[in-house]
């Protein structure tokens, strides 16, 4: 087990390095620089700025400096938010995104699996059609339509919930963003669960279990659910990493100070260090989650025990 973990994480290092290298070059290849704005800087001042941020050095030297700092856990200063370091920005944004995304994934997992299982058990019945229609709707209506719609109904018209902001981070402020984040995931997870559950239910060992007179409940919970969840679990790894690092759409619409905004704004502002910071952070999370998925796989499917 420990050997497996060590092997996996050593294997992840080259992946991370390639990721860092690619992101490092790509963001610098984009036309326009961090100091371009409508108010054009005099060339000498721009030169001073480039020097202060070491952008005047050759690329390989900048890269080496970046990796060196990164090894010490230093993501560097943000070019855009000049009073903050990237580490500070991630530290303040990630807990918010983690909380929103964590609740959203939990909600999506519970609702999605239950709905998908019900739909599979009553295949082609009206409840199956309802679940699938709702989930199709969830997939087809994008977040940026659903979220403002919910704000209009629940905040502007009914006045039950705040229209935005994190406030004290309480339930009322979290509810709408969590639901908005969870909806498309619920839709996807329920479809995945339904599909794989139908397949499992048709397999020989389930038929054997039925023939032996086991109750439906026992069949579902002891025999069918675990294998049926395998595709859901492999989807969950990267999806959780994506959701807990924040969604730019949801964060902008609800005015929530999460990590997601930095992805897009960092790129738009050519904030090299911020973009690199969130990319590396996201990369590490994906690696960690994929590792967790492998562990859960071993638990769900005895054939894959590590």
């Amino acid at each position, binding site marked *: 087990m420990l050997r497996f973990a060590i092997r996996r994480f050593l294997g992840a290092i080259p992946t991370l390095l390639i990721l860092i290298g690619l992101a490092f070059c790509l963001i610098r290849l984009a036309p326009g620089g961090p100091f371009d704005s409508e108010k054009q800087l005099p060339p000498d001042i721009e030169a001073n700025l480039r020097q202060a941020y070491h952008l005047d050095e050759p690329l390989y030297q900048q890269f080496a400096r970046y990796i060196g700092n990164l090894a010490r856990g230093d993501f560097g200063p943000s070019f855009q938010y000049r009073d903050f370091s990237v580490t500070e920005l991630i530290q303040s944004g990630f807990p918010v995104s983690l909380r929103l995304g964590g609740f959203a994934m939990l909600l999506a997992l519970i609702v999605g699996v239950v709905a998908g299982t019900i739909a599979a058990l009553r295949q082609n019945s009206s409840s199956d059609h309802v679940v699938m229609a709702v989930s199709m709707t969830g997939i087809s209506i994008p977040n940026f339509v659903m979220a403002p719609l919910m704000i*209009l*109904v629940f905040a502007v018209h009914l006045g039950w919930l705040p229209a935005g902001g994190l406030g004290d981070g309480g339930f009322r402020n979290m509810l709408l963003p969590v639901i908005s984040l969870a909806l498309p995931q619920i839709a996807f997870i329920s479809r995945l669960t339904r599909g794989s559950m139908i397949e499992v239910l048709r397999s020989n060992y389930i038929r054997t279990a039925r023939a032996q007179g086991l109750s439906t409940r026992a069949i579902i919970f002891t025999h069918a659910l675990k294998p049926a969840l395998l595709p859901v679990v492999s989807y969950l790894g990267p999806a959780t990493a994506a959701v807990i690092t924040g969604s730019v759409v949801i964060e902008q619409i609800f005015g929530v100070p999460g990590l997601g905004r930095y992805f897009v704004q960092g790129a738009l502002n050519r904030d090299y260090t911020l973009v690199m910071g969130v990319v590396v952070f996201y990369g590490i999370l994906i690696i960690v989650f994929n590792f967790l998925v492998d562990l859960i796989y071993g638990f769900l499917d005895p054939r894959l025990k590590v």
Partner: protein
Amino acid sequence: MPVQSDDLPGLSSLIKATPPAIRSGGVLTRIMKCAAVVGSLLVAACGGGPDDSSRSESRLPVGGPSGTELAEQQVIHIGNGAEPQTLDPHRAEGVPSSNILRNLFEGLTLEAANGDVIPGAAESWEISDDALLYTFHMRPDGRWSNGDPVTAADFEFGLRRSVDPKTLSYYASILGPIKNAEQIILGELPAEALGVEAVDDLTLVIRLNGPTPYLPGLLNHNVAYPVHAGSVEKYGNRFARPGNLVGNGAYVLDEWVVQDYIKLVRNRNYRDDAKSHIEEAYFYPTENQDAELKRFRAGEFDVTEQVPYQQLDWIRKNLGDDLVIAPYLGSYYFGYNVTRPPFKDNAPLRKALAMVIDREIITERITGAGEIPAYGWVPPVTGYTGQQVEWASWTQEERNAEAQRLYAEAGYSEENPLSVEILYNTNENHKRLSVAIASMWKQTLGVEATLVNQEWKVFLETRRRKETTEVFRAGWIGDYNDAFTFSQLRYSRNEMNHSGYASPAYDALLERAAMESDPVARAKVMEESERLLLADMPVIPLYFYVSKHLVKPWVGGRQTNIMDHHHLKDFYILKH
């Protein structure tokens, strides 16, 4: 000043207007109707009628029976556009940060609620006969938020720090009129050489390169704010964070949660604190204008930074009383690249294209917030008579006829039409405007225009290089209330002169104006320079901006002004 708010592409364009589809009715009916809309997968959201918005019908009149009663809780929530990059007044740039800095610091001068420049940290000043030397007398009761006295030395320290290249200020170059400032910014002289001297605690002398009648207004800009030397030395570049920041303005920084809010509270040490009403103020980053509008409707914001263009009609109908629109010191224009064909040395062609654009249609049908059609380069500013092209008074038919003549004179015809590229940064509003202009050109002259949009930073670089651009969009917001902030943009050596216009005669006029100490004579020279510019037509002025905000009826003390600058200390919240 960078025009950030309407330059950055937002999500707003993705979300269409919310028509007032449903009038009154009980809560249940509303939910059902909304549900019906969701069910039928209509993208249009359920809008509220005038009588079922967030306002409660049974509310007391604002301000109580007398109309002047103050609310018990003097707290205000303000939408503020983008997140400020920093609250260091010398390193900050852009509207969102200056909106906040204005309350944290006080310059030698200050603005009244109506925008007039009034004494700030200095109670009075004298100007020498040649207008090259200003002597400021500081208020003896000026205090920093930690209780230290505000002295002339603080301003000397602040202004030197601002122009010091080590500070990495983006904006210090507008202090250029102060003696030696330009050389210091370029690193040719030490910061101590700046023409600013604290004679004693209460007397500050500023020496200038040339008469600068707008100096008092300029000293109200954040790059000219003082900073507290002790805290800058102690905290370095982190002095502008909550807990560290010491200011001399009416408010102090209490909290800054990045991307959530910035909270200011009253500065009890402020010299004029007794007159302030607002106790706490929250500034929120609101990049998404539709989200900002919803939070305003839900009663979470008292003032918004912007109003989404696409929903103006709906807002006029339903939130008309809250909509505050006022002239704004900004010019929206298209520029020609005059360093390359077809516009190089081709004033007739430049004029022809400028003439056929019907600005009334643009301001009425495309922008529609009350923008002022522009026939001159400089928006209405104090002490200056804006100049106009001679065809401003013609009818559009007369303009078209003359434009066709000029177009033919430039050698183009139906068989040999001009092909031209319009470059703009990706944004729905710029696109609609470019499409309209391209079709006006096509209709009257037969010009074949192609539209090219680029992401903001790519656009900036393309435009700066002048290698491929032909016609490009641009906007400029004045940094101070003087025609010079616009005139200087077309000075041949200005980095922001993206049309590449280089006219020795124009440059000479600006240089003459800079040395003219009589304000009336100076204005005359500047007006002459604008006439010359319009005759050469390296840019096509389209309209002058307006500021657009939604303001709750209980926000008192807020007056509109051309700079759209507002101070919390003038505000109060009426009972509601």
